[in-house]
């Protein structure tokens, strides 16, 4: 690579970084602006918007609602997804490829389409819009990610590990509990955090399947309709910091456990 192409390549890289981060930085900055109107110049700074967010009972309860949905749907996705991964990664059987394809499909269907489908299906089953319906939709949508992550880890488990456990007196179930499951823990934790973030972040399914109580993204959307205000920037910044911290921590955690194993 010549010197000029190297400079050109790094310019492209930094342009990309700017493109990604400038909107976020602007959003964060506006949350500290002491004025109702979003835009430059910022003449004075304030923390009032943040104080407002943490004093607003509606925002706080919505945040709790979103977290509860994320935790419940993740728990379901992880159990179902791990179970499917173990079945698919085990012995070869007829229809395995088709089963894998169908498992992955929910991740590829456009959000709006799956949201409408869920809505119609929920009504047909008589499921009331609300928390249960949202949890159910999030869980179904997140299963493929769990399956992919757990299968990837499972495929690296040496066959001799299970054979050694069997050799030492473990029946297949005990071998699974004591060897396979501990081996999968880093993948399961990684997948869980990914699911938590996906669910917390979801708008379309939550919007279509929600009842009177909004999730955080739905609330932000509702607030947007009544006009942009730095309050929204403050909510978004809190959410951004939280998800970034959880994401980075999860990434480091999975890497560390992978190395130990």
């Amino acid at each position, binding site marked *: 690579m010549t010197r000029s192409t190297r400079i050109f390549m790094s310019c492209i890289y930094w342009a990309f970084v700017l493109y990604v981060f400038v909107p976020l930085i602007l959003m964060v900055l506006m949350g500290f602006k002491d004025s109702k109107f979003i835009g430059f110049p910022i003449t004075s700074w304030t923390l009032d918007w943040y104080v407002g967010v943490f004093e607003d009972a509606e925002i706080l309860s919505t945040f709790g609602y979103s977290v509860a949905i994320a935790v419940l749907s993740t728990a379901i996705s992880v159990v179902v997804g791990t179970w499917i991964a173990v079945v698919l990664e085990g012995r070869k059987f007829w229809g395995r490829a088709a089963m894998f394809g169908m498992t992955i499909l929910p991740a590829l269907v456009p959000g709006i389409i799956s949201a409408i489908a869920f809505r119609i299906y929920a009504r047909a089953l008589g499921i009331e819009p609300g928390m249960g319906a949202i949890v159910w939709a999030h869980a179904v949508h997140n299963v493929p990610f769990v399956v992919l992550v757990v299968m990837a880890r499972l495929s690296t488990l*040496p066959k*001799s*590990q299970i*054979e*050694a*456990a*069997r*050799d*030492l*007196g*473990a*029946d297949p179930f*005990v071998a699974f509990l*004591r*060897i396979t499951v*501990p*081996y999968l823990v880093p993948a399961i934790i990684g997948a869980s955090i990914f699911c938590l973030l996906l669910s917390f972040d979801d708008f379309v399914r939550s919007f279509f399947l929600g009842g009177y109580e909004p999730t955080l993204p739905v609330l932000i959307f509702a607030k947007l309709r009544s006009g942009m205000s730095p309050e929204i920037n403050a909510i978004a910044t809190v959410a951004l910091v939280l998800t970034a911290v959880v994401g980075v921590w999860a990434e480091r955690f999975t890497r560390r456990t992978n190395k*130990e*194993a």
Partner: protein
Amino acid sequence: MTTPLVRIDGVKKSFGKTVALHPLHLDIAEGEFVTFLGPSGCGKSTTLRVLGGFERPDEGRVILGGQDVTHLPPEKRPVNMVFQDYALFPHMTVRQNVSFGLELKGMGRGDIVRRADEIMAFLELDRFADRYPGQLSGGQRQRVALARALAPDPALLLLDEPLGALDAKLRGQVQQELKSIQRRTQKTFFFVTHDQEEALTMSDRIVVMKDGRIEQDGTPEELYFHPASRFVAEFIGETNLLSGEMRGVEDGRVVMDWNGHVLRGRAPAGVPRTGEPITASLRLERLGFFGDRPDTANAVQARVTSKTFLGSRMAVDLEVADAAGARLRAYVDTATGQGVGDAPVWLGWDADSLAVLRT
């Protein structure tokens, strides 16, 4: 012979169209160190996996200590295995690895600690009890694998090429260790390898396998000096193969014609008929060098074509006189090797050194 510990009774195994084991019959006595030796795909690992319960034979039975275990899963057999990659559990410490089999045997807590301590001390692992496998060297992991397999006190220990992952220097040392562990525990070891040196140094008995069949079964000395087939002669050590024609049997010795020289050799079980082609194996170190015609059973004159210095000994390549350009290779001690020059030498060897092969 008392009843064998293990009886492999006509075990046959195929994978698809490939026959891994032709009906195999073998008895193993208690306390024996038996090595299955052969190239990859010869059926040695399949035999091991059948004994461990990881493969179901298509036909035949496996009898262990008088009990038919053919259809028992691995966890129900009093057999433990040292895996090729050791298969240590990465999320467990050395102590937890060693205790795993004891817990599943349903031993009490106190007994587990005592037995684990005992076996870890025996294999000098006590210092590493709280380490994870990832923190150990190759040799230490190998000992943990051995400790884990020995802890439940199995009737039979299976070893699947456990030295393959070690470097050459360590391997020699571990061979000695393994042999001495086997002597001290008086356990029956079933060892699988493709390395003839490992087989020769450790085994009481070697079973050479080829294409799913037993090629030869005997002590290391028997296999080395009296190989039954060309395959065994070439697989174990270095040898001269002498091809000639069968002349007959005299005083229990095979008489053969080798490029115009009459040689006397040790007869195999089934002697070929007169006039048929035969091959005999002559180990390199069995050739003696003489100034005059020796009175050994076999003697030929030869000229040195090249010498290779190997340290304590020399490899000497020779062209045999009046033998249509036939060549022989000999190992001699360095002093003798340096003594021979361009002048023709006499080579002599006794009839027992020339092993006529089954063809």
